[in-house]
């Protein structure tokens, strides 16, 4: 990213990023894999690799993979949040290699919920 030299420039970049994110949320499947120390220890990286591989195998092209930090659900790690185009993210937990592949095959491809879904139990303050 280029050097930001004024608050106006910062706001402009902020607007561009927001627009890009909104566009991705509208048209793409966004797969967000929790990769904090604990999620990695419980197999988060394996899940990410399996999902990427399976998406390629299934020929699903409109997926954007991203990693994030702690999703706060230690009891259900590894966790993955999947947002189908235009929809709210659904949080899946206790995934392993097989579960990750099944998730791609069922939910990413057909919107069919499979495995453990974690209910969202918080209100997030968004700025």
């Amino acid at each position, binding site marked *: *990213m*280029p*050097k*930001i*030299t*004024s*608050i106006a420039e*910062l*706001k402009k*970049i*902020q607007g561009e*990023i*927001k627009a*890009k*994110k909104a566009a991705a949320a509208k048209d793409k499947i966004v797969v*967000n894999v*929790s990769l*904090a*120390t*604990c999620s*990695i220890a419980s197999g988060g990286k394996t899940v990410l690799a399996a999902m990427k591989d399976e998406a390629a195998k299934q020929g699903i092209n409109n997926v954007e993979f*991203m*990693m*994030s*930090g*702690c*999703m*706060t*659900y*230690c*009891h259900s790690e590894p966790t993955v*949040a999947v947002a189908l185009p235009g929809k709210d993210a659904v949080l899946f937990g206790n995934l392993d290699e097989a579960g990750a592949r099944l998730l791609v095959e069922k939910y990413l491809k057909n919107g069919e919920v499979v495995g453990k879904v974690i*209910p*969202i*139990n*918080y*209100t*997030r*303050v*968004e*700025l």
Partner: protein
Amino acid sequence: MDLKKQLRIATRNCGFIDPECIEDYIGVRGYEALATAITAGTPADVIDVMKKSGLRGRGGGGFPTGTKWGFAAANTADQKYVVMNADEGDPGAFMDRAVLEGDPHSTVEAMAICGYAIGASIGVVYIRAEYPLAIKRLVKAIDDARASGLLGKNILGSGFDFDIELKYGAGAFVCGEETGLIRSMEGQRGEPYTKPPFPANSGYWGKPTIVNNVETFANIPAIMVKGSDWFSSIGTEKSKGTKVFALAGKIVNVGLIEVPMGITLGEIIFEIGGGCPDGKKFKAVQTGGPSGGALTFKDVDVPIDYDNLIAKGSMMGSGGMVVMDEDNCMVDVAKFFLDFTMDETCGKCTPCRIGSKRLYELLEKITLGNGVPADLDKLKMLATTIKDTALCGLGQTMPNPVLSTMATFADEYRAHIYDKKCPSGVCANLLEIVIVPEKCIGCTLCARVCPVNCIAGKVKEVHVIDQAACIKCGACIDKCKFEAIVKQ
């Protein structure tokens, strides 16, 4: 069940943005608070917002953040420092790591805001070397912010300079105490010193220094963007905003939670935490780690905030919540925490160095079944003396687990001393593992699993455990299919 008991301010971005991508952070109005503060306001404005917000230090002490910043700002010095305390060391607490791994930029931004407010150009992060991923992501965040012109010289053309460096701690609990931390940063032994002088007047290298915790910093950009009125509308009269807790131990939903101050203990344990696993009865929760105390099943209606916890003989601490069920022995729990502080005392002052050892020995004596009635008075006297005379926060709070368990579970202490029994069946010396003759069918499974071969009996005949040889490992209990072996 209301699933939305939680409110996420400090952890607002954790799990939502890519922590290694500065664009993701800018996309959620990142660095906007800093940019606005340094280009459109004065340092006094920032301190005013912080004071009005009512934010108090999240590392445990609960000192009002704005007031502390005001002290440092009022001092004139050729150099001031902003320090982020990321030396998270309470057993069972991991919220700082979660924030640093999930949203490092919010802490970087907040340190710069603090720097502007107090007139500091250098920020230092004191982080434990055992957090390699948090370090990696924080370093990347600092580098990216610098490359984007959001740290460094003349940020956004405002004339304000600020940069951040890291110091790695070797993982000593006492270095989380701010004066111990400062000594350690200066390359000396991590030994606390008496306050005053407070770091806000004379801290790192003798200069005015603000030491704030990771979670405190993570709240600040949100307060600056949404305003002090918004923040102070959340929480209780004297404790504003939210607190992040690490829920661990005997609880179904182990995890990180962020809840508004004033939520009751019962809501945390049963509604968010889902209660104890396997239908066991909730007994107590240790808040504030080794410096705190136990809240019990009697306290489920207590609203959690700084003052209520202190009134209950505990403290907020950094926010570890270790949940215990009916199978936990409270004397053993107190011993566990004393074992920790006994190891972690720096040894500078006598009450802490020797007192912790003696406290531990008394607890050990009781759990081994050698306690005498006079030990209870001794424990109390020693604990109170340490609390009153130790040099720093570590020593002053170290007896809390003993005092609070003695106050709320006096019957358990008495059972150990007078009846030589451990009601929860934890203290090995005080229990016998026996086979119930009516239930034993003589399957021999227990005899085969016993590591010391102390179970005798023929096939299809009742088996018997030789108490003198039994090491109380409990392997036979787990193996028995007929619930014929019990602790008593």
